């Protein structure tokens, strides 16, 4: 059956009225939590508590509780940090980049994706702080005038990281909030509960959907999208420079910036897909988050996964071509050394399995998609693990080689961070509209003049 290319694809299925859209999107906010929701929430909060306990013990006893040691001084903490920052990137890509590319199908998923970005960056930002020896002194890192004339080392990629991630968090929050303003107005006008109404009025800033305001609003949204696009590319670039600026074999590779960015989008979209597959069923939004959208996201996953695969292949080739024995050894060590199992998990989950998305049937199958995207996330976590731990455990001097063994606290914090992430998502789904109401209305059928004859 050939597709008809001359016809524009509808973004929303069926033809719900604007008020019906309001109702279906706002329903979860007004309704009491269901039993299923409470069970899910208790699971995520348990994980969150596990993490809190592990972090508390880490603060009390010190980072020695973890498996970090020389030479693997960076292990789970940084792996998790890069993992979560990467996941955050999909949100901004969907919100900003797809907006600039005028891909209307992004309107149904943008709000959720942005929220996920913010939560992911919160999870990520935790790790650089807790992996310090004395996190309660973290404030001293900020440049303040002192008699020792101690200033931050602006030349270090770690300081670039601080600027990049905090800028990213701030800009994502602002972008998300700007998109929420019209929705707060809608919520305000539907609210019957006085407390809720006050809160929504406050956050909506008195927004009244005036066309005079929409004019500025669209311009600002465009500027934000235009600024957020290079920002999101730069954030994971700066994170990649944490590694690439060093001269350790396996780390010092010029392709790291685009490779990490592609990997971030890859894992981010996988996480977005995972969560949205649940959301659309649980909240009855299958006609707003359609199978076409999932298929498009799978195509992007395929594209970025292939970019990651390209980077792997070029790095292999270059490790041989460079003629440096260290580079070649690192490549061999990754594939056949003590952490080979991690390497092959990474390879299969990142390169082999996503290639299944070449097949249309698989792209449009929800259960298989769910399995594949979870595998992608697993693979991407292992990728960061492999990069960090294999290169550190076996670098230049064989006398310095030593393997890394994570402890139960490392695992507690890793799984607990998922608890934090999903708790925040569940709370978000119940308090704020998961789909951007104003945006989805603007791409519904006959939303813009010119398609109809007129009143």
């Amino acid at each position, binding site marked *: 059956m050939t597709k008809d290319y001359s016809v524009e694809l509808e973004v929303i299925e069926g033809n719900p009225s604007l008020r019906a859209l309001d109702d279906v999107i706002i329903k979860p906010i007004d309704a009491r939590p269901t039993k299923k929701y409470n069970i899910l929430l208790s699971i995520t909060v348990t994980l969150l508590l596990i993490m809190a306990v592990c972090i508390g013990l880490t603060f009390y006893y010190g980072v020695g509780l973890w498996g970090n040691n020389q030479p693997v001084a960076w292990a789970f903490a940084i792996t998790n940090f890069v993992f979560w920052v990467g996941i955050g990137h999909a949100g901004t890509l969907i919100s900003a980049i797809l907006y600039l590319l005028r891909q209307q199908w992004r309107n149904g998923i943008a709000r959720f994706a942005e929220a996920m970005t913010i939560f992911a960056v919160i999870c990520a930002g935790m790790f650089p702080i807790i992996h310090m020896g004395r996190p309660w002194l973290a404030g001293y890192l900020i440049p303040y005038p002192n008699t020792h004339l101690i200033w931050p080392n602006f030349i270090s990629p770690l300081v670039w990281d601080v600027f990049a991630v905090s800028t990213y968090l701030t800009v994502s929050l602002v972008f998300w909030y700007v998109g929420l303003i019209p929705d707060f107005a809608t919520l305000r006008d539907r609210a019957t509960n006085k407390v809720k109404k006050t809160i929504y009025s406050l956050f909506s800033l008195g927004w*009244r959907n005036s066309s005079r305001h929409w004019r500025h609003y669209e311009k600002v949204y465009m500027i934000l999208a235009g600024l957020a696009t290079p920002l999101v590319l730069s954030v994971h670039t700066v994170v990649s420079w944490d590694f690439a600026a060093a001269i350790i074999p396996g780390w010092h590779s010029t392709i790291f910036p685009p490779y990490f960015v592609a990997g971030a989008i890859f894992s981010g979209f996988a996480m977005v897909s995972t969560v949205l597959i649940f959301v659309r069923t649980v909240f009855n939004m299958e006609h707003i988050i359609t199978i076409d959208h999932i298929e498009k996201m799978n195509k992007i996953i395929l594209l970025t996964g292939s970019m990651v695969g390209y980077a792997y292949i070029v790095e292999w080739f270059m490790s041989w071509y460079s003629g440096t024995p260290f580079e070649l050894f690192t490549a061999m060590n990754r594939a056949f050394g003590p952490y080979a199992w991690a390497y092959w998990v990474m390879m299969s989950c990142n390169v082999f399995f996503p290639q299944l998305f070449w097949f249309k049937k698989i792209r449009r199958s929800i259960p298989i998609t769910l399995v594949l995207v979870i595998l992608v996330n697993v693979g991407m976590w292992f990728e960061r693990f492999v990069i960090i731990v294999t290169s550190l455990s076996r670098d230049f001097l064989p006398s310095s080689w030593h393997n890394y063994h994570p402890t139960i606290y490392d695992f507690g914090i890793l799984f607990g961070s998922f608890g934090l992430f999903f708790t925040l998502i569940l709370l978000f789904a119940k308090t704020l509209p998961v789909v951007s109401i104003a945006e989805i209305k603007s791409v519904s059928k006959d939303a813009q003049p010119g398609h109809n004859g007129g009143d």
Partner: protein
Amino acid sequence: MPDKKLFGVTALFDSPDGILNAAKKIKEDGYKKYDFNTPYPIHGMDDVISSKPSKLGYITLFFGFSAAAFILSFMWWTLAISYPLVIGGKPYFPLPAFVPITFEFTVLLAVLSTVFGMIAVAFNLPYNSHPLLDTEYMRNVTSDKYGAVIEASDPQFEENKVKEYLKSLGGKSIELIYEPEELKLKVFEPRFLVFLTIVAVLSSAVTYISLNKLMYLPPFDFMLNQKKGSAQEESSFFADKHEMRKPPVGTVARGFLPYEFLGVADTNQFYGNPLLPTKKVLALGQEKFLTFCSPCHGNYGDGSSRLMGQFPPGPTLHSATVIGYSDGKIYNIITNGQNVMPSYAYQITREQRWAIINYIRVLQRSGNPKPSDFTAINKTDKESGNVQN
């Protein structure tokens, strides 16, 4: 009920085409104070509202560039001026390494300034008391209808005329919107003043307690009570009970060559005077001589001590012995002391010592002048018009 002031008349439309056509007509028919409220932006409405694009982009540009300039200067100042450190062999101002931070900071400030500019300037928000808020009109307009409002302040406004006009354009649910009752909020209302006072007292109390009291209590005093020894403290660790350690014997400060003959009074090797008897040197020498040497040796170096016998008078510096001393010998005497005279090494710097020696030579010459000296003086006097015999 007091007479409510009319804000404007509103009408609802069912479709985007309807509101756009109505908007165009309203503009054509010469109305000036109107607005439209739609659940989402309508294409084509911008041209009806305003012919010029939004100016917010300029705010972005300005703050973006300022941010870049600021952060680059800050990084330059801290790492190249305030405390230059060689890091990784890179220059003090490594531009490639500064690019990432500059970029991030530029984006941050550009975004924040644009959004605040939008909210504060373009929207004049937050504005929670606008007459259109909390009306049936607003409830429709944020959901699924498209609305137009013509304000009473419009020059062509007349209540019934406008109502008919909107109906003729196809508008439904014509509504009259009134200004909200003005809340007379006097600034000096007693409740507000009490509130201000409480806030002031609370914030001062909290600040005072946290900075002046709390910081000195454990565990917040960890910076005060550090497990280290301060220079002037008594030490329980070192044998001599001093926390401060002296440099080992024989330590030499950078750029400072020790005087070879320190403590060696009977040497027969002496340094040469590095200073020439220029006006500046002699002025310095005179000043220091009068301060340090004249109490014992007299103002003219003639031994007329003014210590009144409390201390043995210094010998005259015009004796043949002293005239025969080399400059370096006198330097040695000043540095090491001689007989009753103590060492003046701690009071007079090396340069000053040489200057004093130059001045002593002047004094000595003035005490034992040669005939040719007088001719020179007479000549100078004649030239300056000071002829004395």
